[in-house]
């Protein structure tokens, strides 16, 4: 079932800047989607449009089948939001701000649940402290506790691990994993590709207000498994020799390098046969090297592609 349905969403800010330029995105119930994108890509704007903090200029958004503008109560009932900025009342006690959020969402007081949430986020000992007495990482966890306090079915985490140390980051991933087990749909934005790799089911890439790709993480990882074997030749070639046709080689522009693509996980990579065929074709090999695609490469490649398109 589709939990979040974003179609044709555009957002033009007052100054005229177009932060979202036609976004279509479907998020399935119970999945974890990681949204990757450089600074200013439009991640926060997209989340804000779903959660009701900003109004989309065009397009529609549905959460759990409810339009977020016309049927906002039913839609927002389902949504928990952990904002990117640490927005908290400095003088308030931790437990009070967490209870406040639950009340705001119309849920009856439930001390056991609040205690459970605070314990899971290692905040129970700090429940009676004023927010201003907490460290930055603790404040971020208070934001998460607030969002969890009203038992959302869809959780938006806008860079939840920014400024959080490695150990704590793993704890947070653990919390996210448990929410997933409870069937909560999770959308998180991040700059860390490893984070997307570690916890996401699907990965979306956004840049300049457009979604460039949404793919199953496993498919993406399979693409990541692709390796290149580069054979540098002593003498330039005019064309790939016919005897090497079966290997699907590409000749680079300087005509001195042959590139062979293979899968590192495959049983037979074909490298042995290729090298033998190269030798019997009488080519003089100067050097051989391999290179691997990373998510980063895919990401950088996509962004560069889009920039070329935009320039054209």
């Amino acid at each position, binding site marked *: 079932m589709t939990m979040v349905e974003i179609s044709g969403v555009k957002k033009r*800010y*007052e100054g005229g800047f177009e932060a979202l330029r036609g976004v279509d995105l479907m998020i399935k119930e119970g999945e974890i989607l990681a949204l990757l994108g450089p600074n200013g890509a439009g991640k926060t704007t997209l989340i*804000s449009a779903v*959660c*009701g*903090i*900003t*109004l989309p200029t065009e397009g529609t958004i549905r959460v759990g089948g409810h339009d977020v503008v016309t049927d*906002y*109560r*039913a839609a*927002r*009932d389902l*949504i928990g*939001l952990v*904002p990117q*900025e640490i*927005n*908290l*009342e*400095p*003088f*308030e006690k931790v437990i*009070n701000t967490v*209870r*406040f*959020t*639950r*009340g*705001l*969402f*119309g*849920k*009856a007081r439930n001390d056991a649940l609040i205690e459970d949430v605070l314990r899971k986020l290692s905040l129970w000992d700090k429940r009676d402290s004023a927010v201003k007495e907490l460290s930055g990482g603790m404040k971020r966890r208070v934001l998460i506790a*607030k969002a969890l306090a009203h038992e959302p079915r869809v959780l938006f985490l806008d860079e939840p691990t920014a400024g959080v140390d490695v150990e704590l980051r793993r704890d947070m991933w653990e919390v996210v994993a448990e929410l997933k087990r409870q069937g909560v749909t999770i959308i998180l934005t991040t700059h860390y590709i490893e984070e997307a790799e570690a916890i996401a089911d699907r990965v979306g890439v956004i840049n300049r207000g457009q979604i460039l790709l949404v793919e199953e993480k496993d498919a993406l990882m399979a693409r990541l498994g692709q390796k290149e074997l580069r054979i540098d030749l002593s003498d330039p070639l005019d064309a790939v020799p016919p005897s090497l046709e079966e290997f699907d080689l590409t000749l680079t522009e300087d005509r001195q390098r042959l590139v062979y693509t293979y899968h590192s996980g495959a049983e037979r990579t074909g490298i042995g046969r290729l090298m033998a065929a190269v030798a019997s074709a009488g080519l003089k090999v100067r050097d051989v090297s391999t290179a691997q695609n990373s998510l980063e490469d895919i990401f950088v490649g996509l962004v560069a592609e889009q920039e070329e398109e935009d320039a054209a």
Partner: protein
Amino acid sequence: MNWRAVAAIYRFEMTRFFRTLFQSFISPVISTSLYFVVFGAAIGSRIDTVEGVDYGAFIVPGLIMLSVMTQSLSNGAFGIYFPKFVGTIYELLSAPVNFLEIVMGYVGAAATKALFIGVVILGTASLFVDLTIQHPLAMLLFLVLTCLSFALFGFIIGIWAKNFEQLQLVPLLVVTPLVFLGGSFYSVSMLPPVWQTITMFNPVLYLISGFRWAFFGMADVPVGVSLLAIAGFFCLCLGIIWWIFRTGWRIRS
């Protein structure tokens, strides 16, 4: 209606008030006592009675109104300005609440605090002068309506204000003069005719006059007009807030 949200906002706002309960209590007690020393002793020795009412008692309704108006205004303004300032407004915008629920929570709390202070002043004043309230129910009605409508007005200011200076501008520049010139400490009939006419354009006069009628049964303007004025002001503020939330003015980008 999301009543739990209204209650959550109201309770959250009132906790802030209770944290500083002593200050909230002691400052009106002191300022009221000072007014009695200054006005009661200095001016009261020259003016015995105003239209048959002892001068000390005569200023009590104006004194209460002065505090209640400025208090509910600044409480209402600060209550909504603060979430905007620290960024917690995101919660209100992303919660399943409508404008009426948000307003009821914040304005209700702001008005309650002002009402509390009004009652403290009344109590303090009764230590200095003999007070008999002729129409206690009407008195309460005027008091509550004034608290609510000025807290609503403050709420609008809080949304409009972009910084702390603006937040204090309206109360300081507009409301305080209007209250002082609205017959808090005198009867309009004591003024020269030209000023009597000018004063009639001061909306605050109608509130103070109605409130005073509830105490002593005498008024500068008919009590029905007073009631109409405050009800009109209340509706106007509510209408403006409805528009603000419909358009997202200064809150939703």
